[in-house]
């Protein structure tokens, strides 16, 4: 859809209001909107709300071969996507300018500032390193995407835990989350972007512009800083002429704001850590408040979910069979309790990617993996992990042609990689192994 045009009357009103130092929501010139940080059930998943702008961040990791010219460093990969639900104007393929600009800025802020210690991501020099992937999705656009995205990225990275690895001589052991607690990433500092919008050729300045203010602004200055007052990135767009003292003033304001935001992030991380340790309820189901549409509501009834699996099985066993239409949809109806308060029934539609030739190879090699260990994303489904105990076949890491994957030749003393998990994130989307199990069920029926 086309973007809603800005009417003359709105533009005039906004500029007049800014001249009188008034903002639409009653903020002061240097005020940020309310920042809310909530975490999901798996490590590395968070939602950051800056006013009404919402960004979802998810970090995942994978063992790959390093780049040829950086054999001892891990690989970082950042990706911001503007979801179609964020604004009616966002369509697949339409918003490329804005997307490219935001992605470049985010990469410069996070990669060039060296906030993550990439040397610590190396497992075996020249052969195996961790690839950390940060995926950000914009869920709602109400201005200032870059700030929200940078906060979401750094919060997700700080929250993430990767599987523990130990190297003894030639043997590399990768532990599952059940065997050894996953370890956090080693993060040096937290760079955070602060945006300044300029109006009337630089006369008026606003911090954290919302969507309306962004439409009428002349130019934008983004400063990425950390709490030690080190500038990581600075970018000015819009073609306005800024004076030296204006930029200096902005950097001082940015320093103050970054300090506040960093404190907020630390508090949120500590709270989440505490709740997890004490066994309380955590995850999005708890922390995201339900929106009210009407002004009247009933009090929530507390539900004890400790025996939900047994209860549900009883109910399902006693209930009459559903009609034919629903039978095909409700293949797997056994509920799984992830954490207190968050359960899942079924796993969505069958994965139609499972009909690749790789699926036959995987069917033979089931090994000791149980149902709970699921591969990360559909893209990764096409990659195979080495079989347990099979020392003859070459280890094929990836079938995708986009990345340069080096196929290792079998050595005399091959490195045994003990388990098959390569992702700390338990994927809820349909994946190959359950599909395979379902096929077997149908064959039995």
């Amino acid at each position, binding site marked *: 859809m086309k973007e809603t045009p800005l009417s003359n009357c709105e533009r005039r009103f906004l500029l007049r209001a800014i001249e009188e130092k*008034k903002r639409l929501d009653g903020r002061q010139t240097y005020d940020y909107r309310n920042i809310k940080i909530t975490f999901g059930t798996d490590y590395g998943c968070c939602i950051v709300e800056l006013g009404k702008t919402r960004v979802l961040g998810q970090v995942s990791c994978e063992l790959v071969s390093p780049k040829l010219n950086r054999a001892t460093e891990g690989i970082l990969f950042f990706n911001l996507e503007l979801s179609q639900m964020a604004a009616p104007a966002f369509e697949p393929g339409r918003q490329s300018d804005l997307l490219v600009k935001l992605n470049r800025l985010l990469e410069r802020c996070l990669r060039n500032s060296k906030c993550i210690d990439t040397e610590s991501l190396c497992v075996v020099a020249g052969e195996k390193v961790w690839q950390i992937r940060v995926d950000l999705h914009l869920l709602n656009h109400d201005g200032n995407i870059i700030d929200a995205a940078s906060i979401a990225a750094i919060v997700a990275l700080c929250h993430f835990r990767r599987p523990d690895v130990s190297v003894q001589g030639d043997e590399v052991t990768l532990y599952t989350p059940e065997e050894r607690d996953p370890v956090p990433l080693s993060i040096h500092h937290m760079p955070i972007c602060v945006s300044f919008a300029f109006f009337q050729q630089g006369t008026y300045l606003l911090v954290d512009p919302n969507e309306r203010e962004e439409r009428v602004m002349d130019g934008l200055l983004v400063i990425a800083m950390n709490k030690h007052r080190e500038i990581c990135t600075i970018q000015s767009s819009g073609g306005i002429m800024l004076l030296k003292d204006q930029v200096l003033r902005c950097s001082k304001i940015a320093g103050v704001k970054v300090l506040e935001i960093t404190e907020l992030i630390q508090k949120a991380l500590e709270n989440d850590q505490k709740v997890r340790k004490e066994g309380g309820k955590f995850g999005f189901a708890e922390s995201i408040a339900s929106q009210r549409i009407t002004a009247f509501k009933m009090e929530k009834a507390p539900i004890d979910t400790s025996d939900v699996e047994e209860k549900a099985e009883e109910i399902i066993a006693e209930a009459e069979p559903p009609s034919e239409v629903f039978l095909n949809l409700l293949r797997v109806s056994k509920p799984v309790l992830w954490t207190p308060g968050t359960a899942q029934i079924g796993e969505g539609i069958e994965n139609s990617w499972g009909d690749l030739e790789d699926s036959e190879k995987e069917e033979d090699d089931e090994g000791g993996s149980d149902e709970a260990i699921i591969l990360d994303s559909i893209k990764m489904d096409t990659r195979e992990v080495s079989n347990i105990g099979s020392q003859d076949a070459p280890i094929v890491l990836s079938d995708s042609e986009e990345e340069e994957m080096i196929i290792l030749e079998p050595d005399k003393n091959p490195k045994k990689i003990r388990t098959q998990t390569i992702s700390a994130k338990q994927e809820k989307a349909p994946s190959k192994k359950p599909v395979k199990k379902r096929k077997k069920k149908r064959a039995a029926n």
Partner: protein
Amino acid sequence: MAGVVAVAAESLAGGRARAARTVLDQVVLPGEELLLPEQEDAEGPGGTGERPLRLNAGVRARVRVVCGPGLRRCGDRLLVTKCGRLRYKEPGGSGGGVYWVDSQQKRYVPVKGDHVIGIVTAKSGDIFKVDVGGSEPASLSYLAFEGATKRNRPNVQVGDLIYGQFVVANKDMEPEMVCIDSCGRANGMGVIGQDGLLFKVTLGLIRKLLAPDCEILQEVGKLYPLEIVFGMNGRIWVKAKTIQQTLILANILEACEHMTADQRKQIFSRLAES
């Protein structure tokens, strides 16, 4: 009556129809079928087709029931197409009354006869293209203003706000709007003034504010002198004496959606003091 209640009680899982009378003011979901009062007798207990013998079976008053937004005719039943609360309005004179579903949404779909606020996006030849928040821009002829003739064109620029009503609005054609009523008078429609603030709210809030005897509007009117225009497409234009007052009004109206009456009264009294 007992038969009707039994049907309602056991119909939840099976997609069997319920009597509309029993689900008034309750939440209905798309796909549910509702029975009108005259059909309840025909179903009988359990719906298995055991018809009680009746005298004068053939003579039944046929009333005309209007099915409003969110409902559709499906055979001789009503099919729910939107989720929300089922409402009913008693008929004034003859007729069977109106049933509709009160749902909430932000995206507007043009409906014939609705008064909306549009933004002029283009002037091409004899018509203006006006964005009304729907899937297509509406077209507005330059002659559709009061006192407009071929020599005397209205003064409308790109980016201006227009208050008009739809004369053509269906899913097959581009919507058309006009700024005069059937007698040729403006009646409040036309170009909206230069100052003031335009903001967007949900469609349900607009309907609430436009209902007769809306308390919110009366209270707001007592606060400051103001000009206000409501568009059924979720857009409100408001203008008060100063920018500060305009901003306060805009924020109050946006917040009214989620406030109870008491909270609202508190806020208004606090504002009236300051």
